[in-house]
């Protein structure tokens, strides 16, 4: 097999934007004046109030290879795609693209609601770089792919959103470009149409089309891409296999969720909503409250080996939870409980002193340290929060409760790829076996 030709070569691509519209206009007018005066551009330097949306991005892509681009919102993925599509001029660096570039950023771009689907196919096809003759030749294929039938002659304004995106996708995908740029486009239409899209993308790859897919969907990246890059604050921080990049992306998401949760807690506390700073609230509905007969002053998670406080744990890494508890008056049948929330679900696990065998029939007034050891945790990668509750067996109200008392993150394991569902929270090890059976032996 001959060596594959290079389709894209990006070298040190950078693009900056102004933070505010006013600044953007000021710098814009200054740049305009410099250019009109024939003076050299200083676009490679950052001025006050500007930031790098894309910074020093370099990569190469061979013919027939698909590159995934992942990153949280604002990481520069779409800006990079627009530079590759020739929409934004880079402020530094250079990119070379070999062959016709098709862009699924533009799926459905320029559709005029008053015109029929057929008329819009011509407009959209020309926008994607096809000649009217090429559009005519592709028309039947486009109509069939978009599953529009006689509706192709209906004004687009009467199309359902599904018909609209199917037609947009069909035009772009069937134009058979040498390089295909896609931005979150594979989640269009129903399941059958999505399957058809994936099949078509695969076929394009086999025919030699190079693909760049920007997506937040690990499934889409894993299905389509041979390799991927992970972007953070405009920079490529990881260029590797799709699996490694998906791991990095999901870990970053979990880290962001944890940090934004902490920011929210701080803001809430600053507004006095939590009751942490003042008198303990004797009602439910606050971040912290209870009768105050026993309180938890602090909760921290610590590493198993060194006992140092930490928030980020590896997959299946043992966790220790330490809490400082003040019992303000002697208590009988004390119950101490942690509950754990995941990003999208509450109370996914509970760690209760009584359930775990710590029976506390009588606890005298004083300060205590509670240590809980989670030897075998099986949380899936993601962000979690820990809530604390103190109550008594004989009293059905909380002496103390504290929502979001601590936050922690479980990182992706290096040795296995947990891709199946980012909403799942627990990993259960099991054995799979697939054996062929006859129809007669079915259940």
């Amino acid at each position: 097999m001959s060596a594959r030709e290079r389709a894209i070569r990006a070298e040190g691509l950078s693009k900056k934007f102004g933070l505010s519209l006013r600044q953007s206009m000021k710098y814009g007018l200054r740049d305009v004046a410099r250019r009109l005066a024939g003076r050299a551009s200083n676009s490679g330097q950052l001025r006050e109030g500007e930031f790098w949306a894309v910074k020093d991005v370099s990569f190469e892509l061979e013919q027939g290879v698909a590159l995934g681009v992942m990153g949280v919102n604002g990481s520069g993925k779409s800006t990079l795609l627009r530079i590759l599509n020739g929409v934004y001029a880079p402020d530094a660096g250079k990119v070379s693209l070999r062959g016709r570039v098709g862009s699924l950023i533009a799926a459905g771009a320029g559709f005029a609601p008053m015109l029929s689907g057929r008329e819009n196919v011509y407009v959209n096809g020309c926008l994607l770089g096809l000649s009217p003759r090429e559009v005519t030749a592709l028309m039947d294929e486009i109509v069939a792919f978009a599953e529009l039938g006689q509706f192709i002659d209906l004004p687009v304004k009467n199309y359902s959103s599904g018909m609209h995106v199917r037609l947009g996708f069909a035009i772009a995908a069937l134009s058979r470009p040498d390089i295909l740029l896609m931005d979150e486009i594979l989640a269009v239409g129903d399941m059958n149409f999505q399957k058809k899209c994936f099949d078509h993308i695969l076929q394009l790859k086999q025919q030699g089309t190079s693909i760049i897919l920007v997506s937040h969907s690990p499934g889409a990246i894993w299905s389509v891409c041979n390799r991927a890059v992970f972007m953070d604050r405009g920079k490529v921080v990881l260029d590797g296999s799709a699996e490694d990049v998906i791991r990095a992306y999901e870990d970053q998401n979990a880290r962001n969720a944890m940090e934004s949760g902490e920011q929210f807690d701080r803001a809430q506390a600053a507004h006095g909503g939590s009751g942490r700073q003042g008198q303990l609230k004797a009602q439910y509905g606050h971040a912290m409250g209870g009768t105050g007969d026993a309180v938890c002053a602090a909760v921290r998670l610590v590493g198993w080996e060194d006992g140092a406080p930490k928030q980020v744990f590896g997959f299946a890494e043992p966790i220790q939870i330490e809490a400082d508890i003040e019992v303000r008056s002697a208590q009988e049948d004390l119950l101490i409980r942690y509950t754990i929330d995941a990003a999208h679900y509450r109370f996914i696990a509970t760690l209760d002193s009584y359930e775990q065998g710590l029976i506390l029939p009588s606890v005298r007034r004083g300060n205590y340290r509670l240590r809980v050891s989670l030897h075998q945790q099986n949380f899936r990668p993601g962000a979690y929060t820990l809530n604390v509750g103190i109550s008594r067996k004989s009293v059905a109200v909380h002496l103390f409760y504290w929502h979001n008392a601590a936050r922690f993150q479980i990182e992706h394991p290096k040795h296995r790829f947990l891709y199946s569902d980012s909403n799942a929270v627990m990993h259960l090890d099991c054995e799979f076996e697939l054996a062929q059976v006859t129809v007669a032996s079915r259940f």
Partner: protein
Amino acid sequence: MDRKNKSIRVYEASGARLGVVSSLALAGRELYSARHVIWRLFVRDFVAGFRQRLLGYLWVLLAPLLGIASFVFMQQIGVLNPGRTEIPYPIFVYIGTSVWGLLLGAVTNVSGGLIGNADLVIRTSIPKIAFAVTGMATICYGLLVNLAVLLLLLAWFGRPPSAWALLYPLAVLPMLLLGVGFGLFLAVVGAVARDITGMFTTLLGLVMYLTPVVYATDFPNPVLKAITRWNPLTYLVDAPRSLFVLGRVPEPARYAWSSLACVLVLIAGVHAFYLIKDRVAERL
């Protein structure tokens, strides 16, 4: 797939400094490569603009006639004194406003081409000049309609057009080029600072009163007279009108110089467009 004969596109940060000739050559190449898009966008806007309208395409004919009705009415009741004109006033004002409309239309359509198609500019790699000039198709179409209406008007007044009327499209060409030149400059600068185009068109509205558009500018005031005389637009409006109806161009030398100025403005506009266009997409 044929891997040979594949073009290589290169996008890089402010490469070689662009000269005037390079700008013009680039404009020519890009307009040619985007000719299908320009045509399709024109058809799209034209057809979409007339569908689901009560008067449909008839509106194209009625609009210019209604446009001059107010001036003719003011002249009839004595509010407007257009001065001495060799041509019946309705014809005078119709041609004057039509030619002026070409300038204004070219400026507003070309300058608004990028902002109006912002969605396409930031989602496709179509050359930006194609979006800027796509509105010119409407102007050219309007010119043809105006000619048809003008012939009807001349027939109504029993004034056959001169044989030189055939050169009318050529005679108004400088005005169109002037509008495109200003429009291209405003398309890129106006995308950075949005109020510049509005300021310019307001200014143009004032200049109209120093140009023989709706009245003959034989002002008694010597300053106004001098301004009118040195105003190149005077000749760009007068020449096509006189050529069409009277078969002659008053002050042909001044018309020629004015036309040359229009070409220079167009070249400056194209050059400015290509110097600045890279700064525009992110500000749309």
